[in-house]
């Protein structure tokens, strides 16, 4: 496998979707390739940072509306 091929398989690799044979070839390439190791590590970092985008406070007016709806639902 070449680096050009390996970079396109990285999401499949991370999701465990490569066949046993392709996984072995992928990992064999990775062992000796610092560029691909760096690329995979960066994709993981990008994924981790995207997980941090999630946090966002609920605006107070929306929270008040939803809490009021919740109270009505609980009491009904």
């Amino acid at each position, binding site marked *: 496998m*070449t*680096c*050009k*091929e390996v*970079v*396109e398989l*990285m*999401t*499949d690799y991370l*999701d465990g*979707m490569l066949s046993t044979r392709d996984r072995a070839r992928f990992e064999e390439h990775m062992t000796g*390739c*610092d*560029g*691909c190791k*760096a*690329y995979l*590590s*960066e*994709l993981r*970092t*990008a*994924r981790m*940072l*995207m*997980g*941090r*985008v*999630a*946090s*966002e*406070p*609920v*605006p107070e007016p*929306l*929270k008040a*509306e*939803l*809490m009021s*709806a*919740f*109270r009505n*639902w609980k009491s009904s």
Partner: protein
Amino acid sequence: MTMSVSLFSSLPPLSQGRSPYPGPRVVREPIDRDLDALRSGGEAAFEALIGRYHGPMMRLAMTYLRDRGAAEDAVQETWLTCLKTIERFEGRSSFKTWIFGILLNVARARRRKESRILPFTALLRRVTGEGRGPTVDPHRFGGDGLWSDPPDNWSNIPESRLLDRETIDHVRAAIEELPAKQREVVILRDVAGFDAGEVCALLAISAANQRVRLHRGRAAVRKMLEEYLK
């Protein structure tokens, strides 16, 4: 508006690998903490629930709608629909999958209404541009397919810089710039934390489509980070 709340009633159970160690058959009743929080919890539990999902829900709604206000309205309608219909929720998917399914229905319905008001070109950019071809600039490889211009190593970048607010803001902006089909998959997988099978079911797309869109989206966000962190 009629809301399909049984959207996932025909879903097969989420795929679970066969255990290599056959043992006694144990029937496990999965615990859905979100559902418990809603049904049995008090106000604090509900407040925590809406807080936990607000960010991913807003990001997903904004894939379909024109601005934050419209996205907030969609999130609000989603929770109100949830409270109205929770008694009919059969638990065939997780509560989280169910609530995001409602949000997708609400946001798409609102988008259809918007599209009757907004000029066509305003919406066009949101649906096109799925993209084909390599995700890394071919000029970065030599004729032998090996790196000629390898990626920088980020291991020397201090964690404080990687995790600072400005970096996260750049990541958020990069996600918002993705073509819509990549963006919705990236948001569901990497922002909201769904697994591949759940995303395929939510968006009614094949496993191969899901992987292609996710890979292209992640590669684009990585590329933006590479430029930003240089």
